[in-house]
């Protein structure tokens, strides 16, 4: 039962007594604190790796799509050699997948121990950034591939109309710029914040020196 008397009721005193009683046996262990600290960097890396996994899934999806399209086109009787273009594109995706996958595997999400925080963070940052760079280069190669195909296509079909080529090339270049912009935006949205967090952690450790 609660106390009967409320004259000069000292809430602060009751609170202090409560705190002593309620939290006397509780103790934050050093281990618990350290785990909370490392979980930050750890979760960032886990999130980044998950983002790359999604990217890999998309690559597989496109690879299958172009591979299947090429196969169907190839089997179609009397078809033009368009399937070569699709096979080429599927091949490009396969190459992109293999390179990205190798980098993806290098990203280490095992718990970070206190003796290797900085080096491990740097290694993972490097792996993630290089995947994004590879993707940019790969995008350029893919676009160049499509460009050559289109010009070749024009040379075979509409070589009597150079104006048509100029329009096609202009539209295509605009298309490349827009695609590049969208891809960059998507990457920034998906990876930008996490990479910044990782950068901050690394800079913070380095500035301690």
């Amino acid at each position: 039962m609660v106390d009967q008397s409320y004259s000069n009721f000292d809430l602060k005193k009751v609170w202090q007594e409560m705190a002593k009683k309620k939290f006397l046996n509780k103790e934050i262990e050093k281990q618990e604190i350290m785990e909370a600290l490392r979980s930050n960097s750890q979760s960032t890396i886990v999130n980044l790796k998950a983002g790359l996994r999604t990217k890999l899934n998309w690559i597989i999806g496109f690879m299958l799509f172009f591979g299947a399209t090429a196969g169907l086109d190839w089997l179609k009787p009397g078809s033009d050699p368009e399937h070569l273009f699709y096979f080429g594109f599927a091949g490009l995706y396969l190459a992109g997948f293999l390179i990205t996958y190798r980098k993806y595997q290098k990203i280490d999400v095992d718990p970070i121990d206190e003796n290797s925080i900085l080096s491990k963070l740097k290694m993972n940052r490097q792996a993630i950034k290089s995947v994004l760079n590879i993707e940019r280069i790969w995008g350029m190669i893919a676009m160049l591939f499509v460009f050559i195909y289109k010009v070749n296509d024009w040379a075979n079909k509409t070589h009597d109309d150079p104006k048509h080529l100029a329009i096609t090339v202009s539209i295509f270049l605009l298309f490349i710029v827009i695609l590049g912009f969208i891809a960059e935006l998507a990457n920034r949205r998906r990876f930008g914040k996490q990479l910044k967090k990782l950068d901050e952690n690394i800079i913070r450790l380095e500035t301690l020196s």
Partner: protein
Amino acid sequence: MNTKEVERNQLDLENEFVTLIQRNEGIIYKVTGLYSNTLEEEQDLKQEILLQAWKSFLRFRKDAKFSTWLYKLSLNVALNQLKKQKQKINTDYGIIANDQMFEKNYDDNHELLFYLIKQLNEVDRMMMTLYLEGYGNLEIAEITGITANNVNVKIHRIKQNIIQQFKKLNHG
């Protein structure tokens, strides 16, 4: 400075942080206890407070009082956590002694006070906790962002209300 030295500095900083946290761990337990409903929530909140405290530790001015800084940070983390969980915010100014409270068996004033504080809305809970911890109106105003006069009025009313509830619960 090479990587090993940086890592050693990192460890020194971590040790300093751990020592300060352990010295002031009561603050974290009070805040997590007041702003969580389950053990799991309490554990999550504690983890988040420790993490945010660590992330902000380099910005902590050494001339400031660590306990005040930690209180401010812990309460902000708790409020943000609540916002995230989209918990219903009780905008009611006072406390209503409900049937549930009568059903509970409070063996002393300590548990009852803790329970009553927990029933306050988030901001009032924050102010009252700081008041009970011995912070002055100006400090509470600084931490909560409410004017000192308002803090004074609100705390007075909450105190009266709590004492009323003590009486009510005791005399039925």
